[in-house]
């Protein structure tokens, strides 16, 4: 029986395993050094915040793996012998495979800052990071102040986490406004306000110079590059992005760049070895996507795809329209299609903000053809189905606004802002778009087909 070995029990590896099991009878082994069972990495923050216990982050009960004949091996892979199809583990044992799927994920970026390896300095990525945080920042007595370096999604999550335990936080963001490499100015400004209103000491345009150590090799302060200011702290969170976790692979025959190089079939240069998820780097990026995508759902989709190939139905990884979501403190964010931080040449924008300053929508469309390109929403939930179809059918911005009621996905009885939004668009663009009433028939047209 063919033996499929998967390194990494994150969303990519586990999805691949599940789909291989659905499609075949092959022997499957998942290898991980991080945890016994698959857990949702994105939920680690809720464990620290006391919303959930660690076991709640595990999407499958422990019996699931045996029942589905997916073997779990806990071990750290030290080297991959691609000639003999063998994994060698740190403990000295080894494992033979017929096909290998590498799904080792990411690791937090460190940019050679002095003191970056001190005690109390950490990222927020792995289960071990969570455990370390419980050691160095269990409460505001042990951790009187924390500094977070890097203004991305993980940085703001870490800020929210520490804030939930009443630990004062200084948040160093390199950019002049939070996440403005991704978010347009307006959205970015809203998040700046949200961070400040939660009592976080947000420092924009601020870089880390160094982390100073106390006599025990533990972080005691950071120095800001621009001002030279020293900020005393007990914990330093390094959240300046992630990069592929491929140290082990670099010493093998498998071709790597920043990540493990793969073609659109997720195949590496070595036959029978595949790479999926955060650690994979496309030779050529797909459409507007990045060549390395460290997103939950892209990992899942690559797992879904590679499983088909393994099961004898070789298929290309062709992700559909871009979408994503996040939550910044109390502000939910969703995006469908592309809304770049800066409009591209052919694009124009429509922006609406609620008087509360906590909700907005931002639509990007082609100024000539009026084709809808993408939407960002804060504080308003939207239907993925709706926008996926809009993008496929290349509908116009007018069509989208007309049918905005169909798109809304907020809980029932929520105050709807569609009328305001359409009115603003009409005023700004001298149009006369009439909002259509929500129609179940249109919304569920896919299922009704």
């Amino acid at each position: 029986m063919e033996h499929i070995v998967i390194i990494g029990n994150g969303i990519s590896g586990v999805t691949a395993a599940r789909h291989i099991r659905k499609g075949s009878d092959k022997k499957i082994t998942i290898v991980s050094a991080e945890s016994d069972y698959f857990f949702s990495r994105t939920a680690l923050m809720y464990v620290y915040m006391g919303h959930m216990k660690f076991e709640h982050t595990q999407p499958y009960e422990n019996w699931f793996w045996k029942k589905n004949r997916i073997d779990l091996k806990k071990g750290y892979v030290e080297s991959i012998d691609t000639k003999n199809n063998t994994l060698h583990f740190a403990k000295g044992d080894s494992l033979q495979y017929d096909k290998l799927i590498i799904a080792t994920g990411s690791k937090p970026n460190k940019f050679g800052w002095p003191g970056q390896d001190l005690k109390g300095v950490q990222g927020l990525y792995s289960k071990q990071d969570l455990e370390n945080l419980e050691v160095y920042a269990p409460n505001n007595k042990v951790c009187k102040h924390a500094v977070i370096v890097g203004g991305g999604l993980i940085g703001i999550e870490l800020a929210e986490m520490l804030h939930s335990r009443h630990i004062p936080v200084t948040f160093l963001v390199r950019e002049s406004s939070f996440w403005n490499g991704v978010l347009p100015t307006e959205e970015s400004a809203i998040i700046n306000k949200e961070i400040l209103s939660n009592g976080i000491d947000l420092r924009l345009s601020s870089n880390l110079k160094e982390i100073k150590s106390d006599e025990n090799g533990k972080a005691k302060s950071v120095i800001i590059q621009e001002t030279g200011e020293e900020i005393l702290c007990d914990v330093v969170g390094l959240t300046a992005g992630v990069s592929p976790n491929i140290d082990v692979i670099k010493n093998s025959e498998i071709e790597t760049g920043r990540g493990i190089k793969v073609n659109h079939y997720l195949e590496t240069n070595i036959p029978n070895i595949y790479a999926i998820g955060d650690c994979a780097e496309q030779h050529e990026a797909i459409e507007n996507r990045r060549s390395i995508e460290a997103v939950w759902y892209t990992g899942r989709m690559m797992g879904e795809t590679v499983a088909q190939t393994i099961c004898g139905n070789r298929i290309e990884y062709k992700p559909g329209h871009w979408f994503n979501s996040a939550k910044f403190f109390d502000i939910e964010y969703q995006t469908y299609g592309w809304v770049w931080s800066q409009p591209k040449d052919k694009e124009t924008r429509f922006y609406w903000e609620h008087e509360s300053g906590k909700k907005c929508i931002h639509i990007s469309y082609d100024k000539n053809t009026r084709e809808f390109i993408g939407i960002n929403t804060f504080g308003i939930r939207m239907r993925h189905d709706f926008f996926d179809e809009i993008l496929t059918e290349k509908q116009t911005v007018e069509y989208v606004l007309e049918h905005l009621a169909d798109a809304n996905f907020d809980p029932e009885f929520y105050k709807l802002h569609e009328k305001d939004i359409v009115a603003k668009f009409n005023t700004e663009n001298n149009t006369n778009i009439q909002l259509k009433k929500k129609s179940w028939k249109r919304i569920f047209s896919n299922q009704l087909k």
Partner: protein
Amino acid sequence: MKTIQNIGLALFLVALTIFTSLIFFGKYKVTPEVLENLVNSKGIKSELFINNMNSHVVGKEFSNPFSFSTEITSALESANETHKQNSEWDKVIWDKPHSFSYEIVKQGGGGLVKNNQWLFWWFTFGLGIIGALMYIIPNVVVKGPPGIKNNGIWFNAATNRGWIGWFAFIFLVGFYLLLYFRPDYIVNWTYIVEPISESLSGNLASQWFLYGFLYCTVMTVMAVRMYIKYRHNKYQILRTTSVLFFQIVFAFLIPEILVRFEKPWYDFKNAFPLDYDFFFKWNLDELIASGGLGLFILIWGIVLTLVIVPVMVYFFGKRWYCSWVCGCGGLAETLGDPYRHLSDKSLKAWKLERWVVHGVLVFALVMTGFTLYYYFSGADAVLGIKTQTIQDIYGLLIGAFFAGVIGTGFYPIFGNRVWCRFGCPLAAYLGIVQRFKSRFRITTNGGQCISCGNCSTYCEQGIDVRAYAQKGENIVRSSCVGCGICSAVCPRGVLKLENGPEKGRINPTEILLGNDVDLMELVNQK
């Protein structure tokens, strides 16, 4: 703010302590007139009992209800024993000893509480309400801006099955045991609400009036907590208002006012088979004897169960009842909200749930079958099984233990919907309709789920919501009461409760939206 909360907590605990300690005090005395009245009104023919009472109880003063009740119940039991041995069946007193004793204690009780009812109302209810609100209201500021603030729930001994949780469990279970099985011990509590009962129905407060009043009070105070916690979520605000309204108006005020006009006590929203004694002979007899209104109630009750309930479930899901109208649901969604995450999400629990809840439904239907057969044919036994026996067993096991002692008492340990999930026959019936013929579903939003597990953790019914959401599959489950919290706690806007076309409501998928369309079609077609 913290200080206000601490003072509030202290006041609440003082009120709770006073309330609890009241059952240990009082003056209890039976005068010869009381005994005579009782003998006449009950038609008691047992000289043994009367003699016993005269020599051990009458004229003596007791300082706590326990010894007083013991004397009465043992007088009754020893008399009964002798009569049964001698086959003097007409002399046996068939009343349940503690209900019987309750009537005497209620009349014979006196002392500080009975003489200062309003004062003690303020020391217990009044102080408790003020204290609780002082603890709850500052959360507007303490917990930060509107939004999901479940911070520290799993670190708090009150909400993570810690010592406070166990203490609350013991207290609640103790309360229900007294309420159902030792009403004669808690007459002092009934005195506290006597003036309110008298002004509503004109009657003395029974232990059930006390329970109803306490129920409404607790729900109201805890609804304030809900209003604050979910002030950003209009669905929760409206739902909380709705359950509160139906509890206070339909389950409490209207029935009491009906009694004032000498009509039967009836809760118009309490549908059979949750209202399991609706078809009991005594109820049918009483309804038929009550003229037009009685007849209306009889027809309403039948139409409610057979037509209104299923039709409403078809359009809105069982949530219209379970989390918008029902009293049990109302308590679970207010007092029980802090415990919702304690429900068991395992597959085992789901399997158990299906057996038990449908078992109770079958039990209720069989019992009702026996009851109606008895009513129309007059035969009090079928296949050698007495209808009365079945009714007694149901009343004890389901009505008292499951719905009360376990249903609410176990909130701090097994979560707030133990009764609704495992025990309620009406929920089982609504669930069958919801699963097979309804427009309600929780829609999953394409590929946005990140499997974080907040939805499953906070599902009071123990549904593994994530298992569906991460597959891009709508949640259509018989047990879902549509509380809407999964949608509220979702950080990615994945879940929406809605009523839509039946077709495509159940949509198992393998590949989620967002991936290659060809792949989706290929795999999902299989």
